[in-house]
């Protein structure tokens, strides 16, 4: 078999392209502003075509979803109802924590999110990658007042934060992402712990910051701490404690937390138009 001669031109082209790629990665990692603008401009150009395609393909996607996930949704629904009734029973019979219930009611009231301005946004796309399932896209952006890092809630509580907002669309990074940190505290306590995502379908974890002496119980509600360095306003429900593991070496409690915010089958989310002052930001990520 004859092996054709490759010109050095193809190698040169490849070298240029690889260099360009590495440069792009490097600049993007440094948050180079023109590159971010290029990304926004290009996506804005493609967006109208996506909108047209979305109108055409949404019915197909919905049909597929109902076909493929019908059984699992029913099971999940039944399981959630069971868990909810167990939790409610536990809370009412054993705790009688009126204060906590009142706090929970406050969190569930999406019309009045702690006096913060909010904006409702439609979810326009789920994750578009096999490797990053912690992203959803919403159809509102900086034009609607949305800024980087703002908290996003659904029925039940915090579900994520805004990342890379465009003019008319934004990405939301979900709190199930192991890289996301949220400062939280259990209702009725003052100890702030750091909550991390545990991955898709996995509970959240508070593995840092809760001393062993802190009085937390299974079923207690974890809320955003609203501490000075947190980008999230305080008092938003994040999860319910499922399990408490005592770390006797570090004298801390590790908490396994079920998210209270609805993360599946979402159509709309609410963005809290809250931004900490410049000196306060830089805490949770």
């Amino acid at each position, binding site marked *: *078999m004859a*092996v*054709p*001669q*490759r*010109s050095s*031109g*193809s190698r040169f*082209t*490849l070298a240029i*392209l*690889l260099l*360009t*790629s*590495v*440069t*792009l*990665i490097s*600049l*993007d*990692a440094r948050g180079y502003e023109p*590159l971010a603008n290029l*990304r926004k401009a*290009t*996506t804005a150009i*493609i967006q109208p*075509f*996506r909108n047209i*395609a*979305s109108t055409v*393909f*949404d019915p*197909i*996607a919905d049909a*597929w*979803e109902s076909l*493929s996930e019908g059984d699992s949704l029913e099971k999940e629904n039944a399981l959630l109802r069971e868990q909810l009734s167990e939790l409610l029973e536990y809370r009412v019979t054993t705790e009688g924590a009126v204060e906590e219930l009142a706090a929970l009611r406050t969190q569930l009231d999406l019309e009045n999110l702690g006096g913060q301005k909010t904006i409702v946004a439609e979810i326009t*796309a*789920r*994750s*578009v*990658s*096999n*490797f*990053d*399932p912690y*992203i959803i896209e919403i159809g509102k952006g900086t034009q609607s007042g949305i800024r980087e890092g703002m908290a996003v809630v659904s029925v039940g509580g915090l579900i994520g934060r805004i*990342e*890379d907002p465009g003019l008319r669309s934004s*990405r939301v*990074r979900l709190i199930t992402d*192991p*890289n996301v940190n949220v400062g939280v505290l259990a209702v009725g306590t003052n100890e702030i712990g750091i909550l991390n995502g545990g*991955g*898709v379908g996995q509970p959240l974890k508070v593995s840092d910051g809760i001393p062993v002496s802190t009085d937390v119980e299974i079923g207690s509600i974890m809320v955003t701490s609203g501490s000075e360095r947190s980008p999230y306003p305080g008092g938003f429900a994040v999860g319910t404690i499922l399990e408490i593991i005592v770390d006797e070496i570090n004298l801390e409690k590790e908490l396994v937390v079920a998210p209270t915010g609805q993360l599946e089958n979402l159509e709309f989310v609410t963005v809290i138009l809250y931004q900490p002052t410049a000196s306060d930001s830089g805490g949770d990520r």
Partner: protein
Amino acid sequence: MTFLRALKAVAVLVVLLILQLELFASIRFFGVMPEMMLGAAVASGWHGGPTDGAILGFVSGFLVDLYLASPLGLSALTYALIGYLIGIISELIAEDVERIVRTVISLVGIVLGLVTFVLFGELIAEPNLYNKNFGKILVVGGLYTGLFIPLLHFLMEWVFHQGNYRNNQISMTRVQRN
């Protein structure tokens, strides 16, 4: 690459990108979607050779990068390499190769692309790309994308060999490259 080919290539890539974002992101098997743009890079390498494969791979990766949270350029880097590699392989094997061989090579290219993407991601920029679902993504993603390999080759044949469609010379003939 002529201007007309470049225009056709960009049109094909944008259509594939929109399909990936708006259709295939929702139609998943076991939670995994097909990697249409990686498939396009593979097919462009096959039909366009190493240079055009690398260029179209870079462009398709860049388009994907615009919508990913991973650093801009990571997919472009990977897809350019895969396009180049498949371009070299396509030069080394006979031009009248069976379709099944082309399909198998394309599948291997896609799997290699996924592995390279995660490898580069872990090494250069984005930790946590490798997770417990990686094996599933590799197998299901590879096979799922494999379903579209004939379509992707058809589209890239249209981009690179418009003249060769006449007289039923559709399938395997690649243009002479130096």
